[in-house]
């Protein structure tokens, strides 16, 4: 066994006797492509909804809720899947997200979330991660489907048109500031102001985007 390995080591490290340099380069290139392809396929797989809802934490909670919303069925027949909102389409972002996702696999292995109650208990924390991410990238995933440029506010309800004109088109706010909970149930929203809160700046200053404001029982008495 040892002898076999030693022989291979000599062959592998010594100069090539049988193959031309060209062949080796080409071979390297081909296997590189194959490896890259496999890597890409693996990524593509993990980028599908079927993969996401393979885990009960995702299937029994967020996926169930998604099915009741406009992003699952609507008159336009466009369906938003998990990766549409949660994994950036850009390559670089993709890898970064995948690295972060390995942490979830850890959570799954060690079972941080077993029941609906446990999920609800963690939900505020998880939601905050997503809010911060979408805030930081100016709601990139939403804009992949909903371009502000293509938004014809004359065809929106007056209620929506008014507020988009005042806050969205002036660049003061981004989609996620106002449209939380469009795909899943919201966690306890105590202290999370709506995007049109007149005290927004003060609230934002208090805790990086998630500040004072609407408690579950209404007036926080500011």
């Amino acid at each position, binding site marked *: 066994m040892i002898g076999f390995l030693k022989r291979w080591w000599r062959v592998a490290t010594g100069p090539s006797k049988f193959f031309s340099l060209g062949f080796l380069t080409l071979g390297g290139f081909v296997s590189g492509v194959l490896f890259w392809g496999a890597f890409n396929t693996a990524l593509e797989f993990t980028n599908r909804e079927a993969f996401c809802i393979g885990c009960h934490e995702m299937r029994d909670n967020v996926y169930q809720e998604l099915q009741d919303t406009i992003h699952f069925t609507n008159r336009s027949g466009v369906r938003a899947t998990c990766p549409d909102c949660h994994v950036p389409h850009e390559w670089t972002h993709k890898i970064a997200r995948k690295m972060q996702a390995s942490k979830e696999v850890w959570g799954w292995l060690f079972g941080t979330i077993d029941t609906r109650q446990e999920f609800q208990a963690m939900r505020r924390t998880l939601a905050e991660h997503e809010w911060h991410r979408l805030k930081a990238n100016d709601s990139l995933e939403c804009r992949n489907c909903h371009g502000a440029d293509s938004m014809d506010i004359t065809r929106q309800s007056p209620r929506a048109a008014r507020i988009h004109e005042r806050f969205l088109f002036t660049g003061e706010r981004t989609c996620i500031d106002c449209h939380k909970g469009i795909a899943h149930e919201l966690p306890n929203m105590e202290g999370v102001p709506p995007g049109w809160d007149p005290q927004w700046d003060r609230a934002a200053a208090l805790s990086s985007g998630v500040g004072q404001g609407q408690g579950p029982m*209404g007036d926080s008495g500011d």
Partner: protein
Amino acid sequence: MKAWLLLAAALLLPCLALAAGESPRLVGPSPMPAEVPAPPLPADRADDVRRTRNYPDQPPVIPHSITDYQIDLNTNRCLTCHARQYAEAVQAPMISVTHYQDRDGQFLGGVSARRYFCTQCHVPQTDARPLVDNRFEDIDTILERLRRGRDGQ
């Protein structure tokens, strides 16, 4: 004897009428157990135009979409617009002071628990054709008719 006959007739006649033809059903298929496809859901009237109230105490109807609006222990979507501190920014009417009162008329710092579940009292309107005509008249119509009657005399 005559009285007895009359009484018997009075009791029998409605029964005969009933047997002749079942009273017409207001809703659902007739005869009853037949299966018919459900009619399509009528669309909400979500034109953002506030409706006249029929009497001052009426909970106004909702003139906008409330599809998927979450109201539970965690959050109340309605209050993100109708609570005092947010009403101006979205140009929504603030919930009136009665929503801040408990049943003894005491004013509270926040929305009263008995007014928390908004859709108990406030509902959107749809384009559905009413099954039964609504002949409600508000107080002004009635007073107007009375006044005309008096003037006419």
